[in-house]
């Protein structure tokens, strides 16, 4: 599957606002805000807001641009909201130069598999793709374009959920948040087989 296949939902190009960044967002933990046409964290801790227009999935994707690289950021998909707090997320641990894929259970994060080494720079893009039991982290450094940098297998959560963006602390910035439900194409080979009969 190519990535992404869904549009940008918020480019944050407007006057400073929030938290939350607009009426299309709802704060989950502290919150995100618009600052100089970018998305910023409101506090020195974790800042998490979800896109409240609709849920996406089961097969879905989400992505954003790290416009200012700092401590860390990430994006959740198939995420139910507290008190359930279940889903998946890709964590861009910018201070460690690593990407990790997690399953979230009741707000407890369980890392799936190994850390993925990844150096970050301003302008890099990070994404999550959930197709069936395959949870993938995607990355675009502005050179060769988007590429999958790791996939984990987990089928605990398959239903539609929210996309949540988070930024650690107040210095990092995100931009061009996007995502949505993925339409997985039918298997052309199977279709042709049926056509024979």
């Amino acid at each position: 599957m190519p990535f992404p296949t869904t549009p940008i939902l918020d480019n944050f190009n407007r006057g400073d606002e929030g938290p939350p960044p607009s009426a299309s967002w709802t704060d989950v933990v502290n919150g995100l805000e618009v600052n100089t046409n970018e998305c910023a964290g409101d506090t020195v801790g974790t800042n998490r807001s979800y896109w409240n227009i609709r849920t996406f999935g089961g097969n879905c994707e989400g992505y954003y641009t790290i416009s200012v690289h700092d401590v860390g950021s990430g994006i959740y998909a198939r995420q139910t909201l507290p008190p359930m707090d279940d889903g998946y997320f890709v964590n861009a641990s910018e201070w460690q130069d690593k990407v990790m894929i997690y399953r979230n259970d009741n707000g407890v994060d369980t890392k799936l598999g190994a850390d993925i080494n990844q150096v970050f720079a301003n302008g890099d893009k990070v994404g999550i793709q959930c197709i069936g039991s395959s949870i993938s982290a995607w990355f675009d450094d502005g050179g060769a374009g988007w590429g999958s940098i790791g996939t984990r297998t987990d089928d605990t959560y398959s239903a539609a959920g929210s996309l949540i963006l988070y930024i650690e602390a107040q210095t990092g910035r995100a931009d061009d948040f996007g995502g949505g439900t993925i339409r997985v194409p039918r298997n052309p080979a199977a279709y042709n087989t049926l056509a024979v009969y």
Partner: protein
Amino acid sequence: MPIGWYIVPYVREIGSYLPGPSRQCAMNIYTDTIYSAGGWWAETEVLGNRAIAKVRATTTVLTTLNGVAGFKRLPKDRLDDSLADLPLAVKQALKDELLDMGYTGTEIQDRLGEDLGAHTLRDVLKFMTTRRLKPRYDSGEDEIIVDGAIQLCRSVESVDLEVVE
């Protein structure tokens, strides 16, 4: 390249700057060591706050992993290896591990019978992946407790396919 199957614990991640309390398969601590040797690893979480991990690495790295406190190298390397030639003490240690995970003696008996020697490594690992439990966080004790609803495990076949020799 050699392979090995291990039962490893989940451990708390400290200082991760994540939004919530976090845990990881302890094999991840050795990811750089494994990768530097041209290896790979994958896991499935199972009952008892543990994971079954398959590792492809050099003999030197596997020997290192064998000696890590809390890591238990399984006595066979391939899923279809018979357990028939295992000493009684080794088979008993496997049964003790299943009990310590949280499976009952009745469950073990019903599924695997009296003698694990009648089975393959696949049979035992598939039993281990019968279930796992959903974790939760006890903020008062700052502890992740794995005692919630039953959840599905990733299949051992899936792990086996991901880590090719």
